């Protein structure tokens, strides 16, 4: 749930509670005030009536209306009674609430039972009006809060969301920095500053690590070259079989290191955007060249090769295309079985390479990781597909792998 929505909910609940209690309390207070006013009114009316009656020479009139009842009474000591009562008005159909004051008083020597009443209906109407207004106010508050929430969401949080988007898209390996927008809200600005600092440090560390890796790789080349040439010399002159065998093993191990090193260097260069130039290339030409280069290898396994494609041009880097195709086709040959097949299709900017072969011994989702080999004892470096994937990442290709019906399929979508 969004922060604003959550705070809003709290505000609304609190307001609702407060207002509910308030309305109730208010109701009782106003009611109390009304009643006290009305009872005071009744007291005053009584006093006025008594004064008037006592001043008059004639006896008070015995009457009975909804507002005043006077009747003769015995001399009693009864307290005054103030109560609520309901009277059926002859003109009205319903029972009307009244406040009633019932007293016994002596007027000019005789005792009378006097009852005064005042209608409460007007006061009740007022009370109702007040309560309704409060409820309406509450509704207006709700709507207002909702609109305010929407506005705040958009305006105040805009810089935050824009920067959040930048952070989401931040890629350590990309050269561009995040473009963080300044905010005039303290917390957001603090967050911005921290983010920029963190990103810049990470990038610096990353570049420095990459540079180190590249330099280390370069430095390794020369001593390896020296080892190799010296072993070569030793092999020329030695006749001892065991020693020659050992030398050969050393040479093959050195070759392996060299190849891994070259592979890593290539990966570093690709990631470093050193292959930037794009040209219009006829993919089929390069496919055919690659297949022809590997012709003997595929014949050695007696593989049948099918190539189906249209003469479509793609925008790509020439060196990387050659590396990509060689790796993918080389892979298809290497992981194939005798008398197997390779089917290559290129149309609608999608290259599909299918080859027969045993199922993978590794998790397919790791296939494009560095040093992952389906056949661990094989002499390959395990970098071939990692290189393919890196090329794909840098030049925006969609690469996919499937194994179905004893067939490995790699699909590469160009743009």
């Amino acid at each position, binding site marked *: 749930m969004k922060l604003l929505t959550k705070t809003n909910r709290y505000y609304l609940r609190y307001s609702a509670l407060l207002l509910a209690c308030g309305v109730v309390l208010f109701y009782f207070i106003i009611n109390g005030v009304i009643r006290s006013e009305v009872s005071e009114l009744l007291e005053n009316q009584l006093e006025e009536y008594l004064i008037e009656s006592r001043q008059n020479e004639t006896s008070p009139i015995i009457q009975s209306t909804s507002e005043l009842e006077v009747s003769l009474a015995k001399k009693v000591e009864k307290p005054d009674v103030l109560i609520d009562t309901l009277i059926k008005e002859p003109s009205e159909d319903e029972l009307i609430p009244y406040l009633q004051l019932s007293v016994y008083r002596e007027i000019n020597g005789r005792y009378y039972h006097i009852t005064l009443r005042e209608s409460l209906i007007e006061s009740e109407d007022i009370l109702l009006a007040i309560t309704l207004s409060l409820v309406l106010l509450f509704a207006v508050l709700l709507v207002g809060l909702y609109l305010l929430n929407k506005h705040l969401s958009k305006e105040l949080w805009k810089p935050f969301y824009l920067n959040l988007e930048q952070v989401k898209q931040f890629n350590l390996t990309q050269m561009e920095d995040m473009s963080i927008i300044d905010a005039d809200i303290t917390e957001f600005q603090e967050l911005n500053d921290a983010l920029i600092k963190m990103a810049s440090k990470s990038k610096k560390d990353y570049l420095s690590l990459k540079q180190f890796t590249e330099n280390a790789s370069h430095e390794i080349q020369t001593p390896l070259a020296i080892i190799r040439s010296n072993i*070569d010399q030793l092999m020329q002159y030695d006749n001892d079989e065991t020693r020659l065998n050992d030398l050969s093993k050393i040479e*093959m191990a050195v070759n392996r290191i060299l190849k891994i090193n070259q592979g890593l260097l290539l990966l570093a260069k690709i990631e470093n955007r050193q292959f930037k130039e794009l040209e219009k290339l006829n993919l089929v030409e390069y496919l055919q060249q690659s297949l022809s280069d590997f012709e003997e290898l595929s014949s050695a396994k007696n593989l049948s090769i099918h190539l189906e494609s249209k003469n479509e041009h793609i925008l790509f880097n020439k060196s990387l295309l050659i590396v990509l195709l060689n790796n993918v086709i080389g892979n298809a040959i*290497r992981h194939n079985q005798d008398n197997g097949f390779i089917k290559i299709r290129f149309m609608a900017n999608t290259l599909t390479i299918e080859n027969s072969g045993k199922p993978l011994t590794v998790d397919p989702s790791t296939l494009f990781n560095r040093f992952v080999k389906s056949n661990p004892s094989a002499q390959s470096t395990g970098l071939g597909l990692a290189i393919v994937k890196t090329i794909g990442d840098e030049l925006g290709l969609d690469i996919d792998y499937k194994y179905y019906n004893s067939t490995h399929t790699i699909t590469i979508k160009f743009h």
Partner: protein
Amino acid sequence: MKILLIEDEPALQETVSKYLSEEGHLCEIAYNYGKAIEKISVYEYDCLLVDITLPDGNGLEVIKEYKKEGYKGGVIIISAKNSIDDKIAGLGLGADDYLTKPFHLHELNARIKSVLRRLNFDGEQLIRYNEITVDPDAKTVLVNENKVTLTKKEYEILLYFLQSPKRVLSKGAIAEHLWGDHMDMADSYDFIYSQIKNLRKKINEFSVNEYIHAVYGVGYKLIKE
């Protein structure tokens, strides 16, 4: 042939010059840009081997200078950086070949031979070894004057052997010569074994002599026996 090696790494200087001397070349060494310029202005060479990264300058400048003076020797760039830009720049300046460190000495030898042959230094266009004759331009192979049909890779293996006769060529060296930059494929040693088997068979169609001998555990050697 007279070769000038322009290289600052001492161990590499030693290895390469020793190898080239054994191959019958005269090898001189320049260990930096200054010395290189000095030597090329005083002496004539059949081939220059230029390392691009020199302590006091750039090997490409040496090539520029060499070509400016109008010298006709071959130029092979050797560099630790497998940089396409350098390659293009170097070849654009008139270098004849570009070899990436680390390289097999036999590979260097093969390249030197190719460059020199192209520049007509050898006089003869054909490569001969006993009964075997190869015309590198026409890419034809004759054994005792009989034409032999070889596959592309078989041909390249034979040529490689002919360029370093009597030298033990390891399987690794052969593989790298065949596959070069196709890094990952260069470990198909079984493939080489079968190619050489076929090569021998084809040669022996027209000759009783064994030319390609296996050196146990290591590789092969071309020698008439």
